[in-house]
């Protein structure tokens, strides 16, 4: 009996021994919460410029911690080095708290970085468990540093938070689409698809370095301005090849079956007023069909769009929205959507020659053997010449709350 008790005591002591030291314990107040990460590439010096936007947590004194936090616009520091880790190490030299990436919402990549060092940057973010792959990635035609340092004077919000919200809201009209790091990695990895990512622009051209500069570290960079998310960045392999504007992004959205909620088209212009129709898109179904006839590849895009009419201004229609009018509207809607798709195809297929539509992936799904044996290697040459047939079937299921135009007395 005594032996058993002794053995139990020994086991408890042994279990307690490794629990005395908490190797990973860290106080919340000792963390700098990273909200957004920006990466730029300086072509002249071949340096990587890393910008971090963070909220320095502080102990709540009077009032709650959240109240204190809301007053804080966040800090943006940036540092340049030949490696990303070198830049990170430099930033840690000026921040007295440990960087915590658990709440990182967005990764902003500048144009030059997207063109020159994208793959190693993505590899680091993908391999490191600190950054969640569910956070968004966004590209900017200028510098990522400028995007992060933009302070929106209209509301007290950190640019990282603003950007992530903008990404979620902007997709409703198809001007751009949110892409997570995970989705971007998938597009980079999957054969037959080229990657795309949302594009963010800022009105800020040059930032104020409020905290001064020391050893290529810029402390507290910021300036008042406005952020906008519009269009998409298109890639070929791991390099940025061009930008898609709103119309082309919308076209890509139609082809790939993205969820688009609002749509408008403008018809003939008469003076200051034009024929206009606004729709709420209730359902979109896109099908990419690959055909292989006598070794020639062709693509059929079948798109079914179901809409509700929200507003329309027209001169040629009758007061009542009868079937004839709706039929005309449907035709115009189909033509307008076809125009968007054609614009996207012209840009992606002919100009950029990048399969951002995933036609190659659809080919692989239909003919996996042929793809692996032949077409995967030749796709870059085949893709720009593939004929694409577009069929848009639009239907308007209701006309909103009214069935007549507004009649002015």
């Amino acid at each position, binding site marked *: 009996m005594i032996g058993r008790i002794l053995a139990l005591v020994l086991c408890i002591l042994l279990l307690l021994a490794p629990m005395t030291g908490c190797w990973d314990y860290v106080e919340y107040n000792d963390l700098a919460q990273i909200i957004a990460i920006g990466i730029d590439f300086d072509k002249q010096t071949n340096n990587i410029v890393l910008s971090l936007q963070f909220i320095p947590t502080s102990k709540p004194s009077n009032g709650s911690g959240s109240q204190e936090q809301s007053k804080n616009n966040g800090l943006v520091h940036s540092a340049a080095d030949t490696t990303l880790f070198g830049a990170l190490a430099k930033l840690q030299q000026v921040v007295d708290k440990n960087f915590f990436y*658990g709440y990182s919402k967005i990764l902003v990549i500048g144009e030059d970085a997207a063109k020159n060092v994208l793959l190693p940057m993505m590899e680091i973010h993908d391999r490191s468990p600190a950054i969640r*792959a*569910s956070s968004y990635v966004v590209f900017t035609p200028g510098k990522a540093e400028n995007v992060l340092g933009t302070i929106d004077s209209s509301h007290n919000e950190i640019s990282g938070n603003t950007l992530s919200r903008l990404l979620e809201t902007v997709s409703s009209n198809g001007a751009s689409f949110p892409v997570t790091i*995970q989705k971007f990695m*998938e597009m980079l*990895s999957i054969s037959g698809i080229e990657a795309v990512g949302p594009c963010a622009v800022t009105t800020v051209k040059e930032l104020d370095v409020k905290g001064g500069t020391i050893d290529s570290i810029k402390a507290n960079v910021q300036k008042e301005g406005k952020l906008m998310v519009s269009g998409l960045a298109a890639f070929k392999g791991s390099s940025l090849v061009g930008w898609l504007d709103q119309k082309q992004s919308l076209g890509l959205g139609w082809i790939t079956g993205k969820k688009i909620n609002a749509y408008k088209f403008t018809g003939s212009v008469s003076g200051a007023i034009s024929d206009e129709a606004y729709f709420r898109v209730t359902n979109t179904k896109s099908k990419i069909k690959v055909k292989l006839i006598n070794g020639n590849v062709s693509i059929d895009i079948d798109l079914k769009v179901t809409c509700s009419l929200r507003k329309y201004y027209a001169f040629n229609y009758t007061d009542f929205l009868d079937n004839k009018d709706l039929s005309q509207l449907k035709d115009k809607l189909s033509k307008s959507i076809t125009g968007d798709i054609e614009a996207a195809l012209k840009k992606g297929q002919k100009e950029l020659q990048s399969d951002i539509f995933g036609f190659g992936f659809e080919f*692989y*799904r239909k003919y*996996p053997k042929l793809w692996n044996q032949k077409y995967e290697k030749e796709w870059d040459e085949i893709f720009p010449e593939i004929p694409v047939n577009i069929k848009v079937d639009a239907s308007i299921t209701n006309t909103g709350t009214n069935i007549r135009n507004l009649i002015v007395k």
Partner: protein
Amino acid sequence: MIKKQKLTREQIFFSTFLGIIGNIVYIHTWISNDTNRASWLASFAGILAIIPFALWLMYISKFNPEGTIFDTIKQGIGKLPNCLLCIIFITLNVCISATHINMFAEMLRVFVFQNTPAPVFMFIMILIVFLILYSDITTICKLIEVLTVIGLINYFSCFVFAFPKMINIKYIIPIFDTSLPRLISGLIFMTSASSELLLFLMVIVSNIPDPFKHRSWVISGIISSAVVFSLAILIIIAMMSPEIAKRIAFGGVNAARLISVGTYIYGLEILVIGTYQFIALGKIIICMYCSWTSLKRIFGEKRPHLQLAFTALAIFITAILLNSYTKSYFFAVFLGRYILLPFSILVLILASISVKIRRNRTGSVAK
């Protein structure tokens, strides 16, 4: 011979289930390059292919229902060859548990406790298993039963949140995008890696009441593990694409990290880490129990707890010597690829020969 404690149907079912889900949780990615999208199918068929060997084992145990397979070999071929087999068997079990505990510890270090030394996790896990093994086999199997159920609930309750938004059917269909020889090669690897179950059955068979008659208990466990494991791989592929899934170290945890619930909960990996922990605990229990039982066959029932302590120490030392995820991964792949199934087949052949010898000697067949 001493009458062995017999296990219930549920205990056998869950023990079989966990007997298979061992190192394959980590090393299944080894076949992904060959099998591509069909890796879940190769896993499913590979696990099912273990059934004939399990049936063979249970058939042999019919002739010695109260003993382990090694007892049968001892009675037929002799003490010395049996002793040699037991030493290899113990070594294999020690290696399996050491690789598994290493991969689990490093997974914790990657995702949760970056600064905590891996030996701390190893030590705590082994100590817990050591304390559990102080009990009798029925209690151990009851614990395995509970661990498996909680683990499964954890795993699938996490991935429920991935439906339907995060599931991409285009990543699954077409299922076959590989050649038949490559699919078969993946299937063989999975069968061989699943042979961890056969090692467990070699010992636990003495605790199954009338093993061959109740073979359905084991078979249903194997089928269930094949379904659950291949379903888990299928979900991971559907969420991440086969291209990404084949290059990640911890499929389930990585996939769970992508799931967000609303705007406040980012990542449900904690649930899947819990499942991996239960699997690790169950696997080490199984391996340590098998090693300990075989050690008792060599040294007799003298000071059994000292023998158990020795087994625990052997696992701990081997795990410390490995002390690397990568080393453990490739070592587990090596075991799965070249050692486990050939060794199991060798044991089964020797056991069959032993039965034959015994029949020739006695001129009768035991029931």
